């Protein structure tokens, strides 16, 4: 009898909480794996092999100076000679191109002043894929691990364990508004957040609570932990780094909805 009473009381006390899975989407394309690298290399080589011969007369008027400059840079393959045996096939040269392989075109380098940073002809230098935050291993920065989605994890004041931020909800507020408001009270107002849906993506069943996780993206601004919140620290982690910090129970529950 007592057991039954206890069960009914605990059921009545069960509370609903809104969890927030705040993510930063990747900024750059992901690193290619070995297969992708070699496959793209092969397809681009194949495309070059099948490409039309460069229409030289169209771009460089015959007899012009430009044609002479262009012609000086090219190395033309030798055509097939009579009475010569070619064990690996006679060269099939048409219009100065061996049709059994890709055409190697060398264009005259554009003249530019290396000092002049605003020159239109300067070569394009892409930014590094590895940022300063990556080098310093700054887990609080949003400019780290640019090719992976990052997720916000916070440290609880009471148990000092890493979790996804969860907030208790008022009786008359919806789950997604509670999650958004909670994020703004913990992370400050300098964030532009977009909540994907008002439907929770996941429910975590704890002994006393049910945590409904709402997914949202941080589009601009940064997360600055306010002192008045229930959390003492925060990190932006990729999905491969999360299991090192959170409890295995939480990870087993949440990993299905992380990329």
């Amino acid at each position, binding site marked *: 009898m007592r057991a039954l009473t206890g069960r009914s009381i605990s059921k009545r006390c069960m509370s609903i909480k809104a969890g927030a899975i705040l993510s930063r989407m990747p900024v750059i394309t992901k690193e290619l794996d*070995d*297969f992708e*690298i*070699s*496959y793209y*290399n*092969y397809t681009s*080589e*194949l495309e070059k*092999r099948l490409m039309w011969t460069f229409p030289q007369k169209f771009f460089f008027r015959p007899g012009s100076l430009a044609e002479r400059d262009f012609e000086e840079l090219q190395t033309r393959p030798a055509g097939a000679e009579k009475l010569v045996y070619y*064990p*690996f*096939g*006679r060269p099939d040269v048409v219009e100065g191109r061996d049709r*059994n*392989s890709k055409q190697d075109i060398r264009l005259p380098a554009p003249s530019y002043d290396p000092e002049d940073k605003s020159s239109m002809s300067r070569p394009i230098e892409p930014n590094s894929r590895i940022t300063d935050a990556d080098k310093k291993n700054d887990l609080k920065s949003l400019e780290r691990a640019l090719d992976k989605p990052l997720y916000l994890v916070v440290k609880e004041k009471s148990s000092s364990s890493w979790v996804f931020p969860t907030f208790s909800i008022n009786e008359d507020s919806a789950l997604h508004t509670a999650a958004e408001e909670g994020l703004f009270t913990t992370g400050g107002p300098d964030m532009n957040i977009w909540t994907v849906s008002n439907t929770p993506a996941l429910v975590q069943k704890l002994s006393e609570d049910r945590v409904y996780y709402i997914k949202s993206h941080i589009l601009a601004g940064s997360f600055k932990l306010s002192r008045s919140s229930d959390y003492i620290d925060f990190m932006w982690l990729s999905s491969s780094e999360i299991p090192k910090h959170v409890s295995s129970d939480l990870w087993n529950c949440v990993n299905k909805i992380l990329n």
Partner: protein
Amino acid sequence: MSTFRRIYNSVPGIADAYGAAQAVLKKIESRNAARIQRLQQKIDALDPNDAQYEARKRQMQYHIMQSKFRDEINKPEFQELILNPHKPAPMSEYTAREIKKQHWHEKQQMLLMQRLEQLHIIPDTLPTFRPKVDVSLRFPGLRTRVLEPGTILPSSVTARPPVVNIQPFDEHDEGLYSIILVNPDIADTENDSFRTKVHWVLADVPISLTNTRVKYPIMGAPTEDEGTEVLQYIPPTPELNAGFERLCLWAFWQRKPIVGIEDLKTQFQNVTSARQLRDMCKRLQLRPLGAHVWRNRYDRTTDSVREQYGLPEGRVFTPIRISERPATKRNQFN
């Protein structure tokens, strides 16, 4: 080394890409192997006394087969089989069978059902069904390799019985088969209708995944891989002006060998309606798994077929009933 192979220089990077692809496949394979091992351990751990032992075991074995299928489908020989539907496949292998089944589902099965329904074979002979086996016919002397369902054939071609192949795609569709050739288009002037005639009946034909040819003895007792010819083939001989005759060949899966096979001949000879045929199939516990159909009409070879087989002379039909027909010189022969 062939000349072409010697003089051809392949695209740079192809060897690397091939090696990397192989590595990816190997990774998938090892993951699948681990899965298979896990399932095998689960099967070993099952309690044989459990009421659901067989069902669970079968379910897990199915998952093992699926894992193996996912491995093998990436192999070049099976990829070739996918690309070329006409390539003969080793049907004893699960993967090859699944590929062939997929090809059949995509074309032949749909074509068959379309013909059966459009020619009203269903429901004029048997109720609707779901084909599970591929029935293919070949007539001796006909050049076309595979007969499309619904083809109109000359009587001289259909004078001799067709060579029937039944290709099952699942192990549980192996076993004994019966074959019934039905013609629902015999004109019945007395009742102003049509009646059904059974042209050919074979029973207890053993069919397996690899042994697909329907065999029966011309003379003497059947051997192990032969069935029994219950009713000898009667060549279809359509009547003049009576339109097409639909010859529907039904392949039935038998639950067990047929008992009392000697009496079946007269029973099938006495079948005159689709209802009687359905009753017979129900009584003999025949489950239709495949079908085929061709059509005959009166042509210049029909009379010679009648002569050859000693069949009675054909009737001639006109759109006007005999009683209503004016007696002229032209239709005196009736």
